[in-house]
């Protein structure tokens, strides 16, 4: 029910390769309407994008009921911020996901240090594998390819830190525990990884 249309990623619901371009246009139109205060447009945007955003949030905030709060909070933020969406800022779904991620991570960090976030279900490599899986979004293929290649060139442990931080909201402290290293080492790893990532991506594109 409620048709999760934006099943980007490994959902297996393959859309036509050109679907994404028109999806983007539709999301941009909805964001413009929301910016004018049209509540119905927010409801429609929610129906189209909430499974994706909830997936993103749930990976970071694993407590389901807290994740639901974050989701609602994220759409309220979208309601307020839609008018300032700038198509130059990137594709609309990525913009929405960024808001959701930031809300989820803010929630975790505000609650203080190491929350018990349950067992780790994936390591960094799983995420990279999924990144390289065939996707239905042809438009983003090159970006994914480039990021995947550049992640692949990092030290595996450094890469895992980056990916677990981004996809699962792991803090430096959690990563330090997980890799049994001092927090400062993790910070150094992250900085090294991010620096090479940037250099690599600039060289590739």
């Amino acid at each position, binding site marked *: 029910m409620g048709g999760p249309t934006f099943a980007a990623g490994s959902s297996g619901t393959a859309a036509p390769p050109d679907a994404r371009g028109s999806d983007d246009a539709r999301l941009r139109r909805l964001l413009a309407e929301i910016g004018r*205060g049209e509540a119905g447009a927010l409801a429609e945007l929610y129906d189209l994008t*909430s499974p994706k955003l909830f*997936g993103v949030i*749930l990976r970071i905030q694993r407590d389901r009921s807290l994740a639901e709060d974050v989701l609602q909070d994220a759409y309220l933020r979208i309601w307020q911020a839609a008018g300032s969406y700038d198509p130059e800022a990137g594709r609309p779904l990525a913009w929405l996901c960024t808001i959701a991620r930031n809300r989820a*991570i803010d929630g975790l960090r505000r609650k203080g240090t190491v929350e018990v976030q349950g067992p780790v279900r994936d390591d960094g490599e799983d995420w990279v594998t999924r990144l390289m899986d065939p996707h239905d979004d042809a438009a*983003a293929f090159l970006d994914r390819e480039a990021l995947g290649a550049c992640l692949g060139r990092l030290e595996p442990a450094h890469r895992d830190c980056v990916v677990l931080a981004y996809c699962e909201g792991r803090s430096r402290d959690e990563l330090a525990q997980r890799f049994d290293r001092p927090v400062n080492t993790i910070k150094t790893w992250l900085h090294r990884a*991010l620096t090479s990532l940037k250099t690599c991506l600039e060289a590739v594109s």
Partner: protein
Amino acid sequence: MSAGSGGSGSEAAPDPDLHAAEYVLGTLGARERAEMARAIAADPGAAGRVRAWERRLAPLLDAVPPVAPPARVRAALLRSLPGGPVGSPDQLALLRRQVRRWRIAAAGAGLLAAGLALFVAVGSRPEPEGGRYLAVVQGGGALPALIVRVDTRTGIAQVRPVGADAPAGRSLELWYVGAEGPKPLGLVGGTPSRVTLPPGAAQDGVIAVSVEPPGGSPSGRPTGPVVYTGRLIAE
């Protein structure tokens, strides 16, 4: 943007680009995140660095599988919206002016197997703050079959099936029924869609859904009998 000075001990002034990267990555602490959020709002340079990192890492979001949230989040979200940034106090007057531009968003699967129609009386009474109406449409059982939400401020109606199955080999067709009789609005598809009410549509008109042969009624008139009824109530 020199966040971090006097911060958690050992930190020297961070490289602005790495700081932006860690903000996007999510590995900064709460205080640093708050500082960075302020910097983004005030400093185009910081905003640009953050935006560039968001773009670099965004492909990883494609690897996150979607998860359908429970329906209560949607309900709570729509309830929590402020009364309406463009709302005028006289929502009913607004409704009357906007009615010809109403669109129906028909969502989701279908209704019960037998022939059916859904009738919704539109615009029965004004609603205090949002111009939002709700109809819970039942077919005689305890569970609703459809929830129809009409936002008179935006002129958008949404039809959401709750517990109903599409009849095999049939199409569902939306109608507007006014003084001049039923006018077809389009088929109810498996995905959300919007249709526009015909010119001259009045607020006491009726929205109907009927079961038709595949592709819609061949005659331009609905052929399915009335099974469901629903009345709009102020939300």
